[in-house]
């Protein structure tokens, strides 16, 4: 039965890849990197959901959508969607395909999270606001507001093509 379980897990992943993020529907929950794991046994499907931001109000909507869509597949009697911080979601979990989809829909993808020794209380400020314009590719951009329409989005302006745009925040 191992192969059937493995196949079912793949089917769940495939279905999740068709569920859009409620706040940025251009990207799926899989490409957003919020699916931590999928486990299938005879009785239930267990999906671990890693919130992008701790206070993200879309978590409940995602749980409901995943429960409904995976439930409709008829693989198991129950679907359990558990919110987890282990591992914590970071913007590096967005897949290359997801980053490209963000860019095509006018969002700058987040810059990579810096590695190395932890930065001091104020040192991080100097390296935080980096965004590449999704329209013309320029890095001659300025952060207008680190807060945008949702918790995960910041507002920028491109000095070259003079477009305002949003960035999916780096966290």
């Amino acid at each position, binding site marked *: 039965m191992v192969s059937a379980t493995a196949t079912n897990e793949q089917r769940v992943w495939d279905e999740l890849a068709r569920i859009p993020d409620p706040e940025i529907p251009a990207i799926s929950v899989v490409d957003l990197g919020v699916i931590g794991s999928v486990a299938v046994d005879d009785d239930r499907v267990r999906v671990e959901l890693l919130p992008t931001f701790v206070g993200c*109000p879309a978590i409940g909507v995602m749980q409901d959508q995943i429960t409904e869509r995976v439930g409709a597949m008829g693989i198991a009697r129950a679907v359990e969607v558990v919110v987890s911080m282990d591992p914590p979601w970071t913007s590096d979990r967005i897949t290359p395909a997801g980053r490209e989809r963000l860019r095509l829909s006018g969002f700058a993808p987040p810059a990579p999270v810096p590695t190395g020794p932890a930065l001091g209380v104020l040192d991080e400020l100097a390296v935080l606001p980096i965004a590449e314009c999704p329209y013309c590719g320029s890095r001659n951009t300025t952060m207008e507001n680190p807060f945008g329409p949702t918790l995960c989005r910041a507002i920028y302006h491109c000095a070259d093509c003079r477009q305002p745009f949003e960035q999916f925040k780096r*966290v």
Partner: protein
Amino acid sequence: MTDFDAITRAATAELLLTVADDEFVIGFWDSEWTGIAPMLEEDVATSSIAQDEIGHARALYELLATLTDDDPDRIAYGREPDGYRHAALLDHARGDWAFSVARRYLYETADKVRLTALAQSSREPLALLAGKMRREETYHLLHADAWLRRLAGAPDASGRLADALRSLWPDAQEIFAPLAGEEALDRAGILPTPLRALHADWQHRVRPILEPITGPLPDAAPSLDGRERHGDDFRWLHGQFTMVARQEAGATW
């Protein structure tokens, strides 16, 4: 985390409650700017920060509830004002914009020092959550820092900012007020750096930034009751944020 006896458990609960209440109360004060901030961008920013903080508080209350077998909503909304453990810094009404910026700056810098320590906690769920919160809080600090510099450089605002920073300075120390059972947290590695050391670290970092604005700031230390003095400002806010919960007891939303 080998030594999780009743004393350590109670001290951990107290630690979680203080951090959660700080985030919860400052989040509600921030939300008092929604719709009336000095410019549209700041309506968005203060509302977004408020949502972050209340979200952080919810996650901490949930962690606390698993420890004490309680209900997170009851902890958040079911206490009398005197049962809250936020620091004195957060007990004041939102004031004018300079006052809010001053408080935000003091709070964000202190919170960052605290979260950096908690991210190393031996209690794994707390360490994971603190690490995640810290990355989000960087944006709050960026915002507070930008406004501090902006107001400090403007003729009318710089005086108001300096007054607010000086008047809030003593109460800001209370973020690091001693906790009941702190020795147990230290022993178990749940709070890997003592509050006293975090307080010294924070002062060392913020003085060089604040004193050019305020002039010399007095030596100030946290007090034993720094999280227990609540005044009329907070009682009013408590009435506001518990209003729905009181009107529809047991409602789900």
